[in-house]
């Protein structure tokens, strides 16, 4: 809610084309930009005129690594969108560097903008006309709703799960400290500084681990999770290869020759797709039979998009039928492959079975229909038919930002411990760390502490 700090966000829709803009607004935006921007002529950004464009590179000041080649636009208040100092960084390297640039900005003093926050500031600073206030409200509301939705979904995801777990551990530490402070006369197990150190260290290690894995790409590479499904030898691997345009999987006409677990990242019209080829199940065995209906459902449930492949040269079999039941409510595209061969598949049956799905006839071998497939994916994505992943990426960024801030707080707590300061000083930063994690988990920090105290300890006169 702070209106005085400096905020940043990716201000272009993700996914389309290679260019994206990171926008920074607020008092420190130029100072932050100067820290991470290197021009070939060693220009000092802070000394440049307003409304100028500069060519250069964004580097991570921690290790001087180049992140992306960029154009930097510098605009001083008040002639800007928010009436604050604004820096816009035009990145060229696609989604991964774009996100990395934003992260670097955040690490160097900006805070991730709330949904609609640039516009909110524009309004509050008098840049936007009174008549548009309602529109500003709508913007904040709608963006938050979608964001919240995805945020909640993310809470079931792994990173948020881990954050919740860390938060729980810190909660125990705090509850122990607070119980000891608030109920000194009770014969509860009074926590020692040594114990606090041990626990804080453990959480700190876990946070570091999480931040590292997040950096090495697990989250970075996250795209639309796509699964190609279909009965054996229907051409799933061929389709994957065609999309990948490289021969990674071994493809033959003999059913069951896909030996490796295939998980690939491809980029379709700028949208990152993470493709899983039936989770590495050997094709001689029927997937559903092998891993069971429940697990298949579970696997499908995790997917953002299913590509259902049918064989035009074969009848609509029981196996095909079974799949339809499992994919019923999923976002899916039905592909009738092998249209280059004589047709035995009854298209009416297909249409009836997949009445609510888009059906595209393709031949991977003859390269027919693949462009239509790509267009369809792009359309579904941009029309929001597929869960919009740019928000997911932002959610992940939020998680990382929270983790990073929590880490800072815990490091301060460790310093306090090393200095030999008493429990109540240590508690300040441990609580601070929880507050930051709470921004993700949405828990109200102070109330749970009391709940925890009364659950954990027998207290009362």
């Amino acid at each position, binding site marked *: *809610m*702070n209106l005085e700090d400096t905020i940043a966000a990716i201000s272009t829709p993700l996914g389309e084309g290679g260019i994206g803009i990171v926008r920074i607004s607020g008092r420190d935006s130029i100072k932050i930009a100067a820290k991470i921007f290197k021009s070939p002529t060693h220009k000092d950004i802070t000394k440049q005129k307003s409304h100028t464009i500069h060519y250069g590179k964004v580097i991570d000041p921690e290790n001087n690594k180049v992140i992306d080649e960029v154009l930097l636009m510098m605009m001083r208040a008040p002639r800007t969108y928010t009436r604050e100092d604004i820096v816009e960084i035009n990145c060229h390297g696609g989604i991964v560097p774009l996100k990395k640039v934003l992260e670097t900005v955040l690490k160097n003093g900006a805070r991730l903008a*709330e*949904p*609609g*926050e640039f516009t*909110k500031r524009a*309004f*509050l600073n008098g840049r936007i006309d*009174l008549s548009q*206030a*309602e529109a*500003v*409200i*709508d913007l*904040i*509301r709608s963006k*938050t709703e979608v964001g919240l939705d995805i945020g909640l979904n993310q809470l079931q995801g792994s990173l948020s799960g881990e954050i919740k777990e860390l938060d729980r551990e810190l909660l125990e530490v*705090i509850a122990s400290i*607070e119980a*000891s*402070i*608030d*109920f*000194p*006369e*009770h*014969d509860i197990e009074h926590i020692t500084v040594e114990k606090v150190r041990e626990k804080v260290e453990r959480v700190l290690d876990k946070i570091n681990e999480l931040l590292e894995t997040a950096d090495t790409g697990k989250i970075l590479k996250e795209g639309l999770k796509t699964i190609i499904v279909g009965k054996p030898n229907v051409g799933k691997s061929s389709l994957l290869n065609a999309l990948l345009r490289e021969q990674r999987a071994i493809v033959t006409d003999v059913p069951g020759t896909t030996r490796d677990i295939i998980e690939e990242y491809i980029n379709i019209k700028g949208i990152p797709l993470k493709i899983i080829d039936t989770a590495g199940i050997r094709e001689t065995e029927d997937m559903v039979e092998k891993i069971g209906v429940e697990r298949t459902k579970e696997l499908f449930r995790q997917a953002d998009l299913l590509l259902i492949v049918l064989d035009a040269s074969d009848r609509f079999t029981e196996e095909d039928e079974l799949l339809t039941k499992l994919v019923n409510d999923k976002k899916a595209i039905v592909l009738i492959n092998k249209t280059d061969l004589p047709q035995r598949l009854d298209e009416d049956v297909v249409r009836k079975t997949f009445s609510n799905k888009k059906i595209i006839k393709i031949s991977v071998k003859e390269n027919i229909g693949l462009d239509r497939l790509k267009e369809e994916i792009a359309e579904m994505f941009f029309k929001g038919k597929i869960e919009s992943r740019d928000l997911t990426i932002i959610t992940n960024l939020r998680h990382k930002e929270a983790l990073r801030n929590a880490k800072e707080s815990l490091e301060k707590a460790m310093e*306090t411990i090393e*200095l*030999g*300061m*008493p*429990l*109540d*000083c240590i508690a*300040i930063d441990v609580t601070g760390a929880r507050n930051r994690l709470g921004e993700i988990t949405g828990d*109200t920090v*102070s109330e749970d*502490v*009391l709940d925890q*105290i*009364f659950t954990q300890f*027998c*207290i*009362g*006169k």
Partner: protein
Amino acid sequence: MVYHAGCYDVAVIGAGHAGCEAALASARMGLKTVAFTINMDNIAMMPCNPAVGGPAKGHLVREVDALGGQIGINTDKTFIQMRMLNTGKGPAVHALRAQCDKKHYQKEMKLTLEIQENLDVKQAEVVEILVEGEKVAGVVTKTGAVFMCRAVVVTTGVYLKGRIIIGEVNYSGGPNGMFPANELSKSLIDLGFKLGRFKTGTPARVDRRSIDFSKMKEQPGNIKIIPFSFTSEHIEREQVSCWLTYTTEETHKIIQDNLHRSPLYTGNIEGIGPRYCPSIETKVVRFKDKPSHQVFIEPEGRDTNEMYVQGLSTSLPEDVQIKMYRSVPGMERVEIMRPGYAIEYDYVIPTQLKANLETKSIKGLFMAGQINGTSGYEEAAAQGIIAGINAALYIKDQEPLILDRSQAYIGVLIDDLITKGTDEPYRMLTSRAEYRLLLRQDNADLRLTEIGYKLGLISPERYKKFEKKRKMIEEEIRRLMEIKITPSKENQEILKKLGTSPLKTPVALFELLKRPELEYENLEELDPERLLLPEDVVEQVKIQIKYHGYIKRQMEQAKQYKKMEKKKIPENINYDEIRGLRNEAREKLKEIRPTSIGQASRISGVNPADISILIIYLEQIKRKNKEREENGE
């Protein structure tokens, strides 16, 4: 038969710990005040144990004292044991705890009220509050006396529709054998207030002669007595000890065997009790694995044999109480003098109050203490003084006194009550305060004396003394910042002797003192020009230096907090008019009617997007009003 009995500015209903502070504050601010009590002999009664203070509660006492209240002074006059708790855990949570002489405490407070100028104390049960229009107009007593007044402070404690429960027995009654107040609840309901029902309880009192102290551990007071009140000079007093023993397996078995007779489990008690004050039966049930629980035997006074049994609060039937108590080592032959009991009572849902403790719906009607859903003498006193002050300010037509969360525990207490309400009797805890390094018990005077003085509650002499202390602290800190210690040979020798690392460059004494291993007292050798300062000044200097970094950070946070508190929401805001608020948020905002954006953001069910929308709406209103002005409307 109704008769006109007199006119006052302020009428205080109840003379417990809230009522006494309210009445004294109002009278001391020059308002003609009357305080009503159901029984003159029970003014400032402590129906539970006669202990004052402890973590957060002790902080409240010091804050009330700094504002010019009575609880600290009265405790200092009447304590029979004093201890400082939490001494190893950091300056912000040091906590004074006193054991008082129950009757002496009452006698002293009663006398204080009786001799207070502008204050009349009357024994009467108020049964109705009179309202004219939307303003309070007077009160009516059970005997028909009508007192006209401009403000009323309701401090009825646990008396409203009080019901006593002991095992299978229950009857209408107040605490400690008193009469309940059965009629005022109806008057409050008629005035439109929503009431809730809470429960609390107390253990039995036992005969000192029937206890074998040789089987218990003695808990003496601190040798060095630190008083509560900033006005108290050095106190020397003989102290009495408390005694510690433990429940046994036998105790727990007796409880388990008789649970079916406990009103908590038969459903005979409806009110919600405090989690931090569970009865022994609740503890035994909830923490089955704990083999024993602490029991403190505390004297109720110097000239009585009654002893309080802390840890064995119970509402089990009387015969079970006797059996259970006798299973505790040292209590094998114990005689119960007063049985333990549970009490249920009506309280007013506190979100119906404003930050000055005035009700939102009726002007001049204030509430303080347990009626607002709190528990504890200290919490009551804290609200009492604020309600009394604000009743007086209301009549004087002056700005209300509202302490915020970064100023005082009192501010945290009241803000919590009016913003979040409470699901159980509310007790102050240090963990409820966000800025507790600022809200220390040692600096309550530095935080609040000025305010008390401006209100007229602190005498000019006391204020002058306080000013002198404040100046000495400032000057000493400045001096320590200016004195540079050079890395000379002698200095390095001294440092080495003190077990700290040598200097590389000259450094201010102030900086040197931040080292955890160095204490102000030990650095005299490096600081020959040092003046001999009073103990409380040295204490402040030490704390302010040692915790400088932490205090500074909390001040930074507090500054952010204050900014949001300053963004005011107009009183006449129409939440139905704001598009885009979620329904839950809209309903909550309509119910609580926060006065600032900061307060709004603390309401559960109002999320950051709702706050954004609220901010934009307020900006819209502001601009519209400006446009109107410019158009000369």
